[in-house]
């Protein structure tokens, strides 16, 4: 392996690992794409680098510029890493109920954390960042939910990597947040092989998020609307914290130490496997388990962990 010039050169090119031992059907393979191998520890390193370099190319970032971004953690951490290396300042609007490790990683790379109300979830973080950025036009707001450089990172990176390593893919299962992975990797794979089906997994957040005055306060990421997410997607399914943690533990039994949302994606992959006779399902394991050790996800009694998980953003 050649010596790398910068840690940023380690972003992307993540491995696929066969976890078919967990498949309910012998003729259905299940492969995990381990995004926890990225240097900032999650899939979001890809979009952090993509959005920041896109802004640089457009001349939007003067040396030492200040950026602001709402994030439940991983995007903020990826951006903090990239900003630290490139000399930008970063303010991350973070819902109050994320794991302590997410906050620590942001501080490690000197991002300033601005708390948004825990009971408003990611919605509240987006709203607060929008307000702060309009009050501070001198800050650059890359807005991951509305920035085409987010899905593009997956269209030029994640998707082609999966196709290169596993052209026999029949299904891609992704967690749904900004919808960037779905739009980018999903579109690339469907163009490469129209038989590929896309499944999105989401946590049951809508039920618990407060601060909605009425249904018109709802939120759909602008990139999802602009890039035809609904037409691209074949199935969208909810996975609760109980299943997420159980499948995260089963991954660990195979030696794969992944974050709790990876368990959710795997639960979706297993559900998908139950609907087909044969095929190859790839799911995105968005991050490693390190940031969730404080939740006791692997060590404490299951019921207690699930109850705790209801109160934090783990996805």
């Amino acid at each position, binding site marked *: 392996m050649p010596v790398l010039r910068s840690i940023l050169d380690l972003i992307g090119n993540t491995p696929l690992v066969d976890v078919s031992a967990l498949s309910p059907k012998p003729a259905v393979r299940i492969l995990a794409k381990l995004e926890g191998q990225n240097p900032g520890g999650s899939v*979001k390193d890809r979009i952090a680098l993509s959005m920041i370099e896109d802004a640089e190319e457009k001349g939007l970032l003067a040396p030492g510029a200040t950026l602001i971004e*709402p*994030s*439940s953690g*991983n*995007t903020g951490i990826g951006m903090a890493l990239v900003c630290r290396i490139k000399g930008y300042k970063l303010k991350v609007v973070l819902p109050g109920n994320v794991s302590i490790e997410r906050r620590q990683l942001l501080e490690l790379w000197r991002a300033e954390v601005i708390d948004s109300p825990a009971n408003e*979830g*990611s*919605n509240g*973080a*987006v709203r607060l960042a929008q307000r702060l950025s309009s009050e501070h036009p001198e800050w650059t707001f890359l807005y*991951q*939910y509305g920035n085409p450089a987010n899905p593009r990172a997956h269209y030029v990176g994640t998707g082609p990597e999966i196709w290169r390593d596993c052209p026999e893919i029949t299904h891609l299962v992704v*967690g*749904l*947040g*900004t919808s960037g992975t779905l739009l980018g990797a999903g579109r690339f794979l469907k163009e490469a092989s129209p038989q590929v089906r896309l499944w999105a997994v*989401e*946590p*049951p*957040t*809508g*039920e618990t*998020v*407060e601060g*909605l005055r*009425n*249904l*018109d*306060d*709802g*939120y*759909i*990421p602008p990139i999802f609307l602009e890039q035809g997410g*609904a037409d691209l*997607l*074949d*199935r*969208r*399914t*909810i*996975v609760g914290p109980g299943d997420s943690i159980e499948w995260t533990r089963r991954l660990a039994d195979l030696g794969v130490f992944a974050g709790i*949302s990876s368990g959710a994606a795997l639960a979706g992959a297993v559900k998908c496997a139950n609907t087909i006779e044969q095929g190859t399902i790839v799911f995105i394991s*968005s991050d490693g388990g390190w940031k969730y050790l404080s939740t006791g996800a692997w060590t404490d009694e299951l019921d207690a962990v699930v109850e705790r998980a209801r109160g934090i*953003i*783990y*996805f």
Partner: protein
Amino acid sequence: MPEVNLPTLLRQHAGGQRSVSVEGATIGEVLEALQSEYPGMAGQLVTPDGELHKFVNVYLNDDDVRYLEKLDTTVLDRDMVSILPAVAGGGA
């Protein structure tokens, strides 16, 4: 009768109940029954053109009906229908 889980926002129109049971063999029929039984919900779930409201996600058990047969999705008596507002999710 299928059971329908209501989001916090709609519970006020159903006497504060978290879930209610209504008749219906499809998602469209269930939503129609819901709106006629609890008139406060009328117009909040389905648009005048007969489409699901943009910011309303309806799930049959765990699956978003937009990616099943939309309002024509078959509902069985033992099914659980959940209505959730579209919000910014996690993973971001």
